[in-house]
């Protein structure tokens, strides 16, 4: 995984952590209230029971006190526990109550998945009273609510993160490509400039350095030209007009004498400057890919324009890139602005640019116009 992706993940995790923490703090009063009301209920119940038990047992001599009475259980009058049940709030304690240290202790007991609020108290007659209130449902409901809210929050964060990621990727891709595109000419110009300034070069070396500076400056100019076209295409500066492909082809042949054309589809509606830029780019690439003696062919049939090179074809990976430059994984083939530009121009014309290639047999770039008038 790339570090950028790692840091991105970290950011998402951090945001999630902050969100969950704040969620937790927001929900804390809720949970607290639930617990407090459970405690209040338990205390009330215990008090009522204690009063009842007091009244029940106070006049009965110690030896006559019942071992079991209506669900009440006296385990040991002297020592440990007095478990009591009360209508629907029944709780049967099996564990012994610790010896009493202070009056009226309250504690939470969790067993078998139930949460019970247990109150231990002694009655005025000296017997122990232990009262339990099952609060599982009450507390559980609040907790379920909290978990539910956090879950919804998680999903929301995830969704927002994905949307942000997609947006950032869309913004970054062309910028990254541009930065890379600029760095090579800048390195070359700077490096040879430094050499000319500082090193003792032979006349041949001086000439080579100077010509590299000139050619790379030209490349910068080309990049800026392509960027302008791309910016225009982005801004939808799109002026469609009736165009004769045969006339365009003659124009292209002046720049690429090795171009052979076969025009069966002549009249179409397109933005002249953009179409020329796209065809120029495609033909330029085809010329670069072709062997010097092989021609590059442009064939137009109704609805499609094909540029066929005499090269040695592309690897599947290269083919994937030229068909969808935004998805290229391997940075070494992610080069140039030409191909992405052609895709943008094609899309503006409601057309699709598709490359097909076989290794050793050359490459064909096909522009297919979806709606056209011949």
């Amino acid at each position, binding site marked *: 995984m790339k*570090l950028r992706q790692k840091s991105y993940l970290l950011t998402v995790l951090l945001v999630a952590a902050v969100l969950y923490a704040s969620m937790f703090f927001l929900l804390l009063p809720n949970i607290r209230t639930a617990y407090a009301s459970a405690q209040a209920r338990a205390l009330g119940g215990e008090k009522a029971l204690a009063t009842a038990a007091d009244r029940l047992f106070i006049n009965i001599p110690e030896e006559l006190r019942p071992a079991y009475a209506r669900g009440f259980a006296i385990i040991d009058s002297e020592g440990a526990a007095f478990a009591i049940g009360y209508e629907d709030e029944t709780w049967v304690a099996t564990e012994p109550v610790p010896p009493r240290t202070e009056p009226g202790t309250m504690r939470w007991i969790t067993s078998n998945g139930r949460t019970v609020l247990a109150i231990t108290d002694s009655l005025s007659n000296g017997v122990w009273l232990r009262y339990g209130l099952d609060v599982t449902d009450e507390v559980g409901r609040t907790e379920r609510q909290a978990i539910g809210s956090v879950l919804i929050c998680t999903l929301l964060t995830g969704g927002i993160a994905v949307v942000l990621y997609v947006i950032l990727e869309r913004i970054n891709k062309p910028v990254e490509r541009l930065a*890379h595109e600029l760095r090579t000419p800048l390195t070359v110009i700077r490096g040879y400039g430094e050499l000319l300034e*500082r*090193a003792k070069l032979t006349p041949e070396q001086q000439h080579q350095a100077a010509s590299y500076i000139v050619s*790379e400056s030209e490349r910068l100019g080309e990049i800026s030209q392509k960027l302008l076209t791309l910016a225009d295409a982005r801004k939808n500066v799109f002026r469609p007009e009736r165009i004769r492909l045969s006339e365009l082809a003659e124009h292209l042949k002046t720049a690429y004498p090795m171009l052979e054309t076969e025009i069966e589809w002549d009249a179409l509606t397109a933005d002249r400057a953009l179409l020329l830029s796209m065809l120029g780019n495609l033909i330029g690439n085809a010329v670069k890919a072709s062997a010097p003696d092989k021609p590059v062919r442009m064939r137009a049939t109704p609805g499609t324009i094909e540029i066929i090179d005499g090269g040695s074809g592309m690897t599947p990976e290269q083919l994937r890139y030229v068909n969808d430059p935004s998805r290229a994984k391997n940075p070494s083939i992610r080069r140039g602005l030409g191909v992405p530009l052609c895709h943008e121009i094609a899309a503006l014309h409601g057309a699709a640019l598709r490359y097909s290639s076989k290794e050793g047999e050359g490459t064909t770039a096909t522009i297919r116009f979806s709606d056209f008038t011949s």
Partner: protein
Amino acid sequence: MARILVLEDERAINDLIALNLRMVGHTAEQAMTGRDAITLAGREPFDLLILDVMLPDSDGFSVYEKLKGTPAIFVTALGETADKVKGFECGADDYIVKPFEMTELLLRVEAVLRRTQKNEPHYRLGGLDIDFNARTVSLNGKPVDLTMQEYALLETLVRNRNIALSRQRLMKEAWGFSFMGESRTVDVHVQRLRKKLDLNDHIATIYRFGYRFEETP
């Protein structure tokens, strides 16, 4: 000097790096593709690899993996932290980001060669003999006393020979820091070096810039 492989698919940059390396006395072999690089390395091992990260047929990292054991400096146009980290994780000795200054690259080359002890222990020119390991200098067989700064200045000039270095750069290399306005200090030390070592013909003053060590005056 060292035998160095330059693997970079941009002809202009490849030539530029090789030219600079040769300028200071290294042997530079040039490769445009990973395959070429491996073939060249198979013929005779290199002391150092300078590898471009992005190549048409593979990437610099995989070439480095295949030539494991040879020190390498990665050249990357990405400037992306991920690639730097990857470079170091796979054991690269250094990296440099395009666009870079050539003297910067030469410094790094020198540092890696010194670290891996692939650098030449001596430099000789006429009666001058510099022992880089012992940091001593002798002229016509007689040892010459140099101060620390004088020695550092001489070594920097010789290591970057045929390339002019600015006063600031010399200051930074020889004194470990640079401060503007005090570059007269460099002039004074250069004067002393010329006198002590009879280098009047070899340390050239580059007007309004700095100095250059020249083997052939």
